[in-house]
């Protein structure tokens, strides 16, 4: 490791430690006056509430110009997307109480359960009421009592989301910790580690092992979060991030041969060799659970049990009813090879126009009737002319977390091998090229030398 990287690592570790230990200014005032929601925060941070309402975390959508078949003048995201990891969205699966199941039980469910508001001011809402509905502490408090955040019916019968606005939670604020982020980001898609299938535990992510937390890399500016380029993550705050920057250079290895690869191979390809979570779901077939509710049948693995699929990706996205994934090729001059978690989901398509249909989960959760869910969603969306037929959609999820220690990253022999992790034919190489690419001549001397050093 170079001195510069070591210094940055140490700095990050110290910052992370400081973030936990350092007391936020104004604690005494909060303890004296109590916490009155965002207006308390705005005493020292004026304009931040309004600023937050313009972000993807609040709107669950943004204009998107890198994905095929979308109107670039409209906003797209979890708010309104239809795809087969989550066959619903914030509109059709607005937080609600599901009808009683056969046991007479009911429960609250909805895609916007994670929205950091109070549900009365919902996804994309604006104005003074929305500003005061923001749950600042769920992201910023290290003492948030999650038992206080739950959906309930108010006196008018509306479903609202309560918050922990206690003085204790407010007195323990700071930069968001990994826990603050993962509260929502690990629970998406129908359960813990289902959707993206990565863990941010110390033993699973080398950055976390070194004391680095989410917001050290996702360096927030005015509540806008830089993100990577997952082909299935469309909404963005207009800023992107890569590994190359403050911590890593574009030629980060001491080995020149590895550095030659970085023009065509993304860092993640070698340094994130495993992924996990759900790899297939069938929204046409709901399974009865022992509690009497139904869940879409799901095939899943633990966080490190899935080998990724590799493809060229030029950071633009193919989006058709049956496929969402990377565009690119080895010849376009823009693409690199990236790892992806491939997910395949079954849901209903409209035979009349070939489009994927959405599903309101309330009916099938209650009684397993998926077609009733499609009918309810169609009604909510004003779709009258439809004929639902089951079909499959393939989705490529970016594999951008769970970075492995460098001694466990892929090396020459993992890829340059017959039946190695890279399918060179699928990546566009001719038979003669593949023969050369899988010849041990490429790496034998280097690996032999390393082996001798190890012995």
């Amino acid at each position, binding site marked *: 490791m170079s001195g510069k990287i070591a210094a940055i690592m140490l700095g990050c570790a110290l910052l992370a430690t400081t973030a936990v230990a350092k007391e936020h200014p104004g604690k005494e005032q909060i303890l004296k006056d109590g916490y009155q929601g965002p207006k308390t925060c705005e005493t020292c941070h004026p304009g931040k509430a309004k600023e937050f309402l313009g972000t993807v975390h609040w709107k669950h959508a943004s204009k998107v110009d890198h994905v095929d078949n979308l109107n670039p003048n409209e906003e797209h995201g979890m708010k309104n997307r239809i795809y087969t990891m*989550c066959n619903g969205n914030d509109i059709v*699966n607005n937080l609600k109480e599901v009808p009683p199941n056969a046991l007479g039980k009911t*429960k609250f*469910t*909805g*895609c916007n*359960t*994670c929205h950091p508001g109070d549900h009365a001011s919902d996804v994309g809402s604006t104005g003074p009421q929305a500003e005061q509905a923001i749950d600042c502490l769920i992201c910023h408090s290290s*003492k*948030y*009592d*999650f*038992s206080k955040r739950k959906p309930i019916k108010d006196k008018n019968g509306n479903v609202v989301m309560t918050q922990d606005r206690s003085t204790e939670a407010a007195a323990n604020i700071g930069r968001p910790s990994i*826990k603050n982020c993962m*509260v929502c980001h690990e*629970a*998406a*898609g*129908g*359960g*813990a*580690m*289902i959707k993206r299938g990565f863990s941010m*535990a*110390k033993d699973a992510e080398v950055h976390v092992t070194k004391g680095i937390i989410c917001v050290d890399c996702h360096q927030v500016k005015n509540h806008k979060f830089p993100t990577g380029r997952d082909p299935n993550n469309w909404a963005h705050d207009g800023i992107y991030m890569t590994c190359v920057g403050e911590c890593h250079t574009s030629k980060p290895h001491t080995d020149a041969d590895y550095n030659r690869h970085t023009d065509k191979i993304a860092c993640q390809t070698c340094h994130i060799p495993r992924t996990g979570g759900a790899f297939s779901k069938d929204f046409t077939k709901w399974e009865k*659970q*022992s*509690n009497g509710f139904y*869940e879409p049948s799901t095939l899943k693995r633990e966080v490190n049990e899935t080998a990724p699929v590799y493809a060229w990706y030029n950071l633009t996205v193919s989006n058709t009813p049956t496929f969402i994934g990377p565009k690119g090729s080895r010849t376009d001059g823009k693409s690199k090879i990236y790892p992806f978690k491939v997910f395949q989901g079954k849901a209903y398509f409209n035979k009349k126009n070939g489009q994927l249909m959405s599903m309101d989960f309330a009916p099938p959760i209650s009684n397993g009737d998926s077609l009733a869910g499609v009918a309810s969603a169609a009604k909510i969306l004003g779709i009258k002319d439809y004929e639902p037929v089951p079909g499959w959609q393939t989705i490529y999820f970016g594999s951008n977390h769970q970075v492995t220690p460098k001694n466990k990253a892929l090396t020459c022999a993992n890829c340059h091998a017959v039946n190695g992790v890279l399918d060179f034919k699928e990546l566009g190489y001719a038979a003669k090229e593949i023969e050369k690419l899988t010849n041990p001549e490429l790496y034998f001397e280097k690996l032999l030398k390393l082996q001798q050093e190890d012995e």
Partner: protein
Amino acid sequence: MKKISSVIIVFAIMLAASLTVISTASAETIKITGVISKIEIAADQKSAIAVIKDNKSGESISITIADELTLDKLKDKRILEGDEIRTKFEKEGDKNTSKMFKKTAGC
């Protein structure tokens, strides 16, 4: 005499090793889904015991939780009494040690 002592030592080592193997082999991995009826966090905050009512058998099972991530979820009440969870635990004698402990509910 020296020879006899050596034989006894070797025999003792073999016996200890076989007992270890038996002990390891006797740890059984069990998966259940059920509602948490009770959570007790240890005074030193380093472990917790959750009582789960198995949906299938109706039996209440005490499970010891020691992994940091799950403990944290119990402490800040992301996982509560009344929540349904799916757990995988190792049963060794009277002790059940959690290897996986997740809420069944998603969004």
